[in-house]
């Protein structure tokens, strides 16, 4: 199969960046999108041009490293990770537009590679539980219903790829933050820090410059892990309750003498 690739080239974060068009020919229909880019890069190296930089790791759809906007849609139109896009899905001879995930907090570092450390800082702000070291607790002491476990697992499926932010017309990170907060907030282990977590993660999310959610639902339409916007509702609820929680803690207390 033959394709015309329109690729975003940008030598470093400070550079302006530009569109470049490359032809690729005799690509196997079974090749993945990333393999097609590998083949193109082999040729660019031979021709003395700098190969196209792109993120990848596992290439089996579980790590969340790959992040390509294909024909305008994050990860392409099939709601999978970029590495799970195959060339047979494209029309032979067509032009394919490849660009990085676009959002102001995700700085383009080089070509198709963006800086997703804002996500790391959101998780650092509250995406953890504090436990005292000690003997292994008795598992039956804290029962977790299958429904709760399923809800936590659904949220924990987030691989942090950033497609939700790229697909959002407001560049909002609510689906990511909602998933990371909900996954701990619904479990017994997450309860002690529940409200502080919600507030801290939202505060960090805002500090990173992500936009606000307008409930358009575009994020869940591109999420390769099919995370529902119900996690955003959970975060709204926990954030609202955290405010009440703080106000309550400021109530006057009775003093004994």
């Amino acid at each position, binding site marked *: 199969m033959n394709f015309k690739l329109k690729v975003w080239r940008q030598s470093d974060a400070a550079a302006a960046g530009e569109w470049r068009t490359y032809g690729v020919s005799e690509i196997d229909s079974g090749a993945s999108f990333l393999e097609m880019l590998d083949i193109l890069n082999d040729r660019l190296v031979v021709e003395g041009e700098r190969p196209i930089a792109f993120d990848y790791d596992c290439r089996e759809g579980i790590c969340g490293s790959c992040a390509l906007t294909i024909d305008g849609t994050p990860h392409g139109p099939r709601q999978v990770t970029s590495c799970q896009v195959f060339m047979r899905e494209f029309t032979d001879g067509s032009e394919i537009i490849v660009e990085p995930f676009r959002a102001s907090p995700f700085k383009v570092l080089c070509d198709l590679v963006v800086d997703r450390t804002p996500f790391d800082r959101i998780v650092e702000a509250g995406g953890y539980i504090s436990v005292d070291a000690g003997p292994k607790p008795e598992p039956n002491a804290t029962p977790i219903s299958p429904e709760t476990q399923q809800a936590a697992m659904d949220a924990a499926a987030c691989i942090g790829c950033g497609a939700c932010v790229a697909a959002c*017309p407001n560049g909002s990170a609510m689906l990511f933050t909602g998933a990371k907060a909900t996954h701990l907030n619904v479990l017994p282990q997450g309860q002690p820090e529940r409200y502080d977590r919600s507030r801290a993660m939202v505060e960090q999310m805002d500090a990173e410059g992500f936009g606000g959610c307008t409930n358009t639902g575009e994020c869940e339409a591109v999420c390769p892990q099919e995370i529902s916007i119900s996690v955003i509702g959970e975060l709204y609820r926990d954030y609202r309750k955290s405010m009440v929680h703080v106000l309550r803690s*400021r109530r006057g207390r009775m003093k004994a003498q």
Partner: protein
Amino acid sequence: MADPHPPGLNEEGELEGSSGRHGGILRQFWDSTIGKKIVVAVSGSILGLYLIVHMLGNLKGFQGPGGGEPEIDVYGEWLREVGSPALPEQGALWVVRAILLLALVLHVVAIVQLSRRNLAAKPKGHRPPRIQRSLASRTMLLSGLVLLAFVVFHVLQFTTATIQTTPIVEGEVYANLYAAFQEWYFVVFYVVSMGLLALHLRHGAWSLTQTMGWDKPNRNPTLRRTATALAVVVSLGFAAVPLGFWLGIVPEPTSEAAATAASGEPR
């Protein structure tokens, strides 16, 4: 380096944010995107509740001229008197107006600030293609701006009577409505605005439940349908009045003052 105090607690062992160090919890609330969205949701629902009452009151126009004393004129008079003598004349009216103005200002200010954030969070020229966002959700800013302009016009026309394209006489609600909605341009403007109101309410009402954290997967279909029903009923109820007068479903006013108002019509 070890943290000297547990996360989320400050040196005094109080919850973070509970001291004045971060400028107070209300400041934090207003500065966060979710806090502002909650302000938008609450102020929007105040405006929405008012719309329902306003729409129901308008339907009194369909009770007709009533032989000199139209029901809607009586209702208009009652709105000025309600609450007296406990409240001063027009007291309740002004309390409602003050609440509405405050809600509107908060709604608009929070939206302007949020929209500026949202625009800044997206590099220029990179608006993602539409996948499943609804027409209503895409046009919230547009419908909101048109509705704001509509509200200003509407108040200037029927409340302050500043716009006298058709003569507006204080107290003669029925005659005023009749005269104004004989003009096709007013009818078109009002009906189109109510169409946009339907879109705005449809996304706004459901968004309210999501932003307040009331929506859950099992409630979602009901909430979506309720929001759609609310939007359709409210906007149809409003649009029925100008259409009713224009199509002649409700008769001409009969009172003397109204007759002079209607005959004084320049066109």
